[in-house]
């Protein structure tokens, strides 16, 4: 009430905040509905399979490439820093911890956000502006059940798997540099990498992609389904989806890391 009482400026602030609060509310409604649809039919198994193929298999080459080079780069950078303490043989543990805990999940999520949040937003956005979503509702199908839930399920299954692959390929990339350029033995590298990882790291490394998957798929669908204003609107929705999904990936990884660091 104080805000209201302070007059014009307060009212303007409220006007400014209203759309933001309204869209957060809409996002919650969409998330709630798509999660509720997990427990009620009909389930569009075909659509889930197609989306798994698009999101999972489709992202595989780029995830492998990026995973390999991130392991490669971390090892090169870290070996230089570690050389000052004469601890280059520990490079495996650093690569393992950085990749499994943080970089593997975040890089994979960012790639999938760029590839699939945009893809989802533009596909649903185009369907929105060409009245296909209205047609779907008119013909007795819930667009959330048919479009959103399959994309959410597919992303939640595929992103953790992609992350595991990225982590593993990253470790191989690190090993390539450690063996060829730094001159570590195979045993030195892999033992230090293996011993560095605790149960906690694995849980953290798998929880993150799972949460990211919810955010990426739902943000993509959310902006897609809010598209108005023709093809220009589709472009705008796509951009917004990628930006929002990427920002949320960073916010959430910080939150989860904070929780897990305190667990020790």
């Amino acid at each position, binding site marked *: 009430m104080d805000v209201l009482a302070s007059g014009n400026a307060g009212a303007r602030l409220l006007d400014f905040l209203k759309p933001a609060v309204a869209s957060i509310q809409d996002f919650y409604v969409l998330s709630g509905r798509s999660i509720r649809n997990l427990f009620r039919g009909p389930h569009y198994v075909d659509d889930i399979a197609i989306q798994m193929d698009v999101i999972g298999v489709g992202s595989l080459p780029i995830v492998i490439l990026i995973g390999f080079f991130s392991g490669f780069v971390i090892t090169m950078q870290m070996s230089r820093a570690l050389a000052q303490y004469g601890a280059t043989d520990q490079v495996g543990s650093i690569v393992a911890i950085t990749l499994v805990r943080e970089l593997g999940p975040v890089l994979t999520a960012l790639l999938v956000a760029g590839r699939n949040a945009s893809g989802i937003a533009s596909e649903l956005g185009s369907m929105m502006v060409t*009245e296909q979503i209205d047609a779907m509702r008119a*013909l*007795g199908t819930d667009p959330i059940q048919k479009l959103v839930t399959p994309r959410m399920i597919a992303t939640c299954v595929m992103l953790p798997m992609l992350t595991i692959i990225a982590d593993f390929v990253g470790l191989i990339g690190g090993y390539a540099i450690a063996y060829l350029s730094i001159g570590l033995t195979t045993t030195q590298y892999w033992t230090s990498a293996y011993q560095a990882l605790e149960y906690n790291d694995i849980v953290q490394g798998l929880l993150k992609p799972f949460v990211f998957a919810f955010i990426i798929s739902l943000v993509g669908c959310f902006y897609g389904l809010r598209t108005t204003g023709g093809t220009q609107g589709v472009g705008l929705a796509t951009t917004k989806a990628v930006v929002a999904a990427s920002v949320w990936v960073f916010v959430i990884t910080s939150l989860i890391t904070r929780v897990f660091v305190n667990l020790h």
Partner: protein
Amino acid sequence: MSAPASPSGHECLLRFDNVSLRFEEIVALDSVSFDLSAGDTRVVLGAAGSGKTTLLKAAIGLIRPESGKIYLFDQEITGLKEAQLFHIRSGVGVLFQEGGLFDSVTVEENVAYPLLNRTEHPETLQEAEPKVKEALRFVELEQTLEQYPSELSGGMRRRVGIARAVVSEPPLVLYDSPTAGLDPITANTIMALIVKERDSKNTANLIVTQRYQDGQLMANFRYNRSSGHLEPASNNGEGGAEGSNPTRTIFMVMKDGRVVFEGTQHELEASQDDYVQKFVPKHS
């Protein structure tokens, strides 16, 4: 402005009772009331942004009104949940402005969609096939079964849209600008199909359009089942009396969400209102 009484003995399929609706500050519908029975045709004319499409979407609950009531098949739909609406909507065929076809699936799957996805007794693609073929034969596009909507021309897409709208033989069909963006010849083909659908299945029609000729065709022509052609609606009963309305076609003109005119073609042509006159070509 009293609603013209529909001949008795006809069930009211769609009724708007004082429906108002706004988008933010813009009034989309303002106290709209009318009703529609089997075999009736209602042609809604109006400038762009006058609330025509909103009216059509509100009729099947895609948009909810702020006040007033909408009855679809004698059931009030304004308070229903989306899941409850699915069943009721299966009795309505809709042609969307751009066809609204799903571009990720073939023409066959598009036309079969209403049969495959209805809440009661959904069919399989095999079961639906004869009906799909019949609907496509109706719009003379059987050969496009395996094609994707993107491979078709605008007029063909519109015809596939009609096939999808009528494949489940709904008693009520809504057409949103069926001829928008089409050349006059294709537009006439589309309208002829709509007349054919009305007269062979006795459906109720709500047609939203900007073209006066569309309404004129609906009002003055009938489909002759034996000859398979359109012919002027004969005035044999009334002897061609002025104001007779053999096709039970009512025109409705909308302006800024309000119904500013409602009546027969004859009354429309006789109207002195400047806005209403904009939709009637100057001749006669």
